[in-house]
């Protein structure tokens, strides 16, 4: 991994100095794996890319497996004065194995009248759209699968495919609750995607690039030094307003409280997932959690300096930031009531959209004046 680190450092250095110079998209992790295997050219790119993708996907799936059946329960339990799983294995950790195997081994019920290809594809689309997003996320320590110049655009594009999946699931399930969930998902995604991306655009204006690694690199520069402690130029510190907007829109985008309208238990049973069982349910469940982590990863990259942090290696810091975001969503889930759909959309179109454009305009002016 140290080798990868070096690679990342060097690419960053070159990028930072040679910004604006067109060059082929870099793929740090794939390159370093290919380098380790002694392959180069197309073969090296393909083999390195595949192995890298395998690695990243597994890291994320494992993370989700820990988060879904175990961490979520433990976190919720500590918010509500309970203990939660503690009988199966140490700290109840074996519940991860038990839960996942049991869910996978359940009967897969295909209800009458479902719209077959769409119904089957929906869980896959939801899960993999989120996983694909991780392709351009710089985890730090050289763990970045690809680093295209349009990284930010790619990650948002990939993440929003999930709403297509949700709509497919809702529409194809032949269940009115699912349909309502699907419709809510469309409405919320259209309303909150725009503020989300417009807010991200303000970061892009600051950084002057769409490339993930460069956005991270820009944030590494010092902002101020107070009493010997250098505060880096994290965009969350530079523009806390944008960060707050982004976090809110992000919550809506990943469908968490107080914006968990597409699922909304107690209103529409389980929303778009009502009819799914067994493997498909596992996929949906995974998809949901990977989305939370993707949301966390984007927030960390754009606003929290990516893998930056003292002492510990970059990857660990990045991981911690993702988990912090996960914890935040669970906290919101335990403590914040859900908005009604019309209020939610009102807040989106009349509030978030206006604020995010105001933020964009202000940022543009400031950057234009200062630079």
């Amino acid at each position: 991994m140290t080798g990868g680190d070096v690679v990342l450092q060097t690419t960053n250095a070159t990028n930072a100095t040679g910004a604006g110079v067109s060059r082929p998209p870099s793929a740090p992790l794939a390159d370093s794996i290919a380098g380790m295997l002694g392959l180069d050219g197309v073969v090296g790119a393909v083999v390195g890319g595949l192995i890298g993708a395998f690695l990243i996907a597994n890291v994320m799936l494992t993370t989700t497996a820990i988060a879904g059946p175990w961490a979520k329960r433990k976190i919720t339990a500590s918010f509500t004065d309970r203990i939660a799983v503690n009988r199966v294995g140490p700290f109840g950790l074996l519940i991860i194995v038990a839960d996942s195997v049991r869910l996978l081994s359940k009967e897969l019920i295909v209800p009458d009248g479902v719209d077959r290809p769409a119904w089957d594809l929906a869980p896959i689309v939801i899960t993999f759209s989120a996983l694909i997003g991780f392709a351009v996320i710089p985890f730090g320590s050289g763990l970045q699968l690809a680093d295209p110049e349009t990284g930010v655009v790619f990650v948002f594009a990939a993440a929003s495919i999930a709403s297509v999946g949700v709509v497919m699931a809702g529409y194809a399930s032949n269940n009115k609750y699912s349909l309502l969930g699907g419709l809510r998902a469309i409405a919320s995604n259209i309303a909150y995607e725009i503020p989300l991306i417009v807010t991200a655009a303000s970061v892009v204006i600051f950084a002057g690039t769409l490339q993930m690694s460069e956005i991270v690199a820009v944030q590494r520069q010092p902002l101020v030094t107070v009493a010997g402690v250098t505060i880096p130029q994290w965009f969350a510190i530079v523009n806390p307003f944008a960060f707050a907007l982004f976090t809110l829109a992000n919550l809506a985008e990943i469908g968490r409280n107080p914006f968990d309208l597409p699922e909304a238990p107690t209103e529409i049973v389980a929303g778009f997932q009502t009819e799914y069982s067994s493997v498909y349910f596992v996929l949906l469940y995974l998809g949901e959690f990977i989305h939370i982590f993707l949301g966390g990863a984007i927030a960390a990259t754009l606003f929290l300096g990516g893998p930056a942090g003292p002492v510990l290696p970059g990857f660990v810091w990045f991981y911690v930031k993702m988990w912090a975001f996960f914890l935040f969503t669970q906290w919101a889930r335990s403590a914040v009531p859900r908005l009604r759909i019309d209020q939610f959309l009102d807040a989106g179109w009349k509030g978030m959209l206006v604020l995010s454009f105001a933020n964009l305009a202000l940022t543009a002016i400031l950057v234009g004046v200062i630079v």
Partner: protein
Amino acid sequence: MSDSAPDRFRSDPTQVETDTRDARISGTDDRFNSKLRQAFGASPFILTKFDQFMNWVRGSSMFMLQFGIACCSIEMMHTYAVKHDLDRFGAGVPRASPRQADVIIVPGTIVSKFAPRMKRVYDQMPEPKFVVGMGSCTISGGPFQEGYNVVKGAEEVIPVDIHVPGCPPRPEALIYGVAKLQERIATGESSPVVVKPYELEEFGDLDRDEVVDQLAEEIDEDDLVMRYNWADSP
């Protein structure tokens, strides 16, 4: 007599094993065969371990159906909540959709109007599924047994794995019941065979009797119906 005795009581253990195994493999008696065993033929060790593992899995983690009927559901909520925390046993995630649930706790009196709906919810759950009958009402109708509208126990409608008596049972009792269920599943005792005491029938299939004739106008031939005879029930 003395000739047939060795046949009836075989004392040679290897003989017994071979016979049983042969019966299983040849398919003359496949009662003990899981699908995997049928697929893989006889290689008992791995499959036994696999079965054990699956039993452990099913016994250690279960999603409950968020399902409330009557008085017992209040104690059921308490069992999920702060003090008793059923989630310690890996059984504290209530799912609102029956498609994602493993265990249905039947917490209360079942009346004629609700019985077919409950049956429907049970049918919507994916196999393997388990039923915990909570409270006296699910055993016999409890204090309401003599009511004109009360179904006398959950077993009249769906198969029950564990009965937890009480009116209502204390949360501790329900936890004990769930733990017992887990223990049974883990040791492979809980039978995966689903006994169906009654099915929902289509109205058109019923034998013509006085009641059916009276209702023939009102009910569509394709409607599902539950037929319940209070005189015959326990």
